[in-house]
């Protein structure tokens, strides 16, 4: 029965190697951010937290955070709304061009993001729009809204269409069905789509590079600094950016559990 002892050990070892391969680079960024030296060398001789205080004191860094946060929040909000209606069209309703819609909506995901960014930049130029953080929102949406749609569509596929029919049969109008049945049932999908949209926007580099114009996001700044003018502030900002996403996920989980707990208690 089961694997032999040596096979089990080999499996564990393999797992550890994979995890190390994935996460050691991230740890090294963490180490780099607390090194006192101006250049990244291993092993680190002297530790310091001064780069964190200078990061929080830096107006540039705060401005970067603000721009990235603003773009990601708006993208997440719009993705949730567009994704909700997109998912209904994708998964719930049989309409004439549904199968075409299901294919077209996937196209932006198949484009290399650099190509998508470039074509959007050319398009904005052609329309006479000067790129700034707002054009980046549009660019992010082109790529992220379809993903949000797919995430919500998966949820929409999983619930019984008879629920909506039953609500209608009991006298509910289209609006009442949406509010009482469809929206609450899709809510977990909408929330995860929002989270995904935020994270994808927050970490996006290629689309932002082409479409933010004079504004700059965190990933863009990180790259620019590595190319010219590396200081330990770079990994510091990197770590802060990861901490930001982790915090968002933690908050989302906390809310989810609170809601679950509250509804379990009411039952």
């Amino acid at each position, binding site marked *: 029965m089961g694997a032999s002892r040596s096979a089990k050990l080999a499996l564990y070892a393999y797992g550890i190697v994979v995890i190390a391969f994935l996460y050691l680079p991230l740890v090294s960024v963490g180490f780099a951010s607390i090194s006192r030296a101006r250049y990244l060398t291993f092993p680190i001789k002297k530790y310091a937290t001064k780069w964190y205080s200078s990061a929080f004191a830096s107006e540039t860094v705060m401005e970067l955070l603000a721009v990235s946060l603003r773009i990601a929040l708006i993208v997440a909000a719009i993705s949730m709304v567009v994704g909700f209606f997109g998912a209904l069209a994708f998964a719930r309703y049989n309409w004439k061009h549904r199968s075409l819609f299901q294919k077209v909506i996937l196209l932006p995901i198949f484009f290399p993001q650099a190509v998508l960014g470039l074509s959007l930049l050319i398009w904005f130029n052609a329309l006479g729009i000067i790129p700034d953080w707002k054009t980046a929102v549009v660019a992010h949406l082109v790529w992220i809204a379809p993903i949000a749609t797919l995430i919500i569509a998966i949820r929409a596929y999983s619930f019984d269409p008879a629920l909506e029919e*039953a609500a209608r049969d009991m006298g509910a109008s289209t609006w009442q069905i949406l509010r009482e049945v469809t929206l609450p*049932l899709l809510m977990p999908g909408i929330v995860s789509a929002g989270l995904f949209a935020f994270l994808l926007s927050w970490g996006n580099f290629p689309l932002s590079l082409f479409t933010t114009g004079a504004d700059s996001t965190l990933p863009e700044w990180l790259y620019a600094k590595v190319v010219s003018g590396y200081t330990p502030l770079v990994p510091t900002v990197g770590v802060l950016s990861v901490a930001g996403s982790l915090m968002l996920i933690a908050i989302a989980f906390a809310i989810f559990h609170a809601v679950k707990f509250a509804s379990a208690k009411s*039952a």
Partner: protein
Amino acid sequence: MVGSTILKLDGLSKNFGAFQALQNISLEIFEGEFLTIVGPSGSGKTTLIRLLVGMDEPTEGEIRLRGKRIEGTPANKRPTCMVFQSLALFPHKTVGQNIEFPLKIRREPQDRRQERANELLDLLRLPRDYYHKRIAQCSGGEQQRVALARALAFDPEILFFDEPLSALDYRLRKALEKELKDLHERTGKTFVYITHSLEEAMVMSDRIAIMNAGQFEQIATADQIYAKPVSKFVAEFMGEVNLFDIDGSERSGIAASALHSRENLNLGLVDDEFGTLMVRPEFIRQIDGEGNSDFWVFGKLRAEYLLGSRLHYEFECKDGTTLTVEKLREDRLSCVAGDEVLLGWDVENTHLIRSGG
């Protein structure tokens, strides 16, 4: 209890592309009756009930509710309600919120809603503290009752059922069939039930409509349908049956070669008329000699099956056809497999299904 016509279908047809799901259906449903529409899968019964509740529109024909045409009225504007096959209980709402749903849609005040929900919990014999329970925490039978309570909260003029018991195990289904019949009597509402299970239909209904290939074969009481089916389809659908071809141009009137009958037996056939003679397996007995009954066949016992309180026998006739016989346990036949015996029955236990000349 049964009153005037509440719902009248007239020449109802429904096509899906070239496929005719319903062909020229007419039916009158009476106020307060329990009508069951029975048919095999694909017979069109689900299509029909969707037209009746307003989830689909007929291609042709009229539906009249108390004389008013409603075939174009959508489901949410009709005073009827359906219990779905999947029950369609809202998983994100509690038992109480599910039952109150139709009242919430009508914007009735919360205290009134809760009062009604509690009344319905009592009516369906569910404890009142189930009000706060989640649907997922209820058993299959409890979910059935919640679905019924919710439909009754709507206070429909006609309550439709789309095979709601089909997913339950046998014992629970039997218990709920009786409860449903009882509930029908207590509420006095018109119930229209569809199912593929004839047993279910016979236990509960005042009338049964047998459906096949998008049309009604027969609409009558369970007893009439069992004893006097109008077609071979109905006869075979209503359980085990023995059928023999009849031909009015033959001297004896009988075309089936294995079947013998007493001389001058009047089957009531006109010349050149064709038909089928039906006899249910419980009316056939073992006889001592030819002519001791109106009809007889020689049969070799092929197999004996035990069906609880009854025994089911399969005999092979001389022409290779099968004759089925059923006996109560205490009337067990004395033959064993391989024995050839004489089996007979009388004309008053037969029924003639005419199929024209």
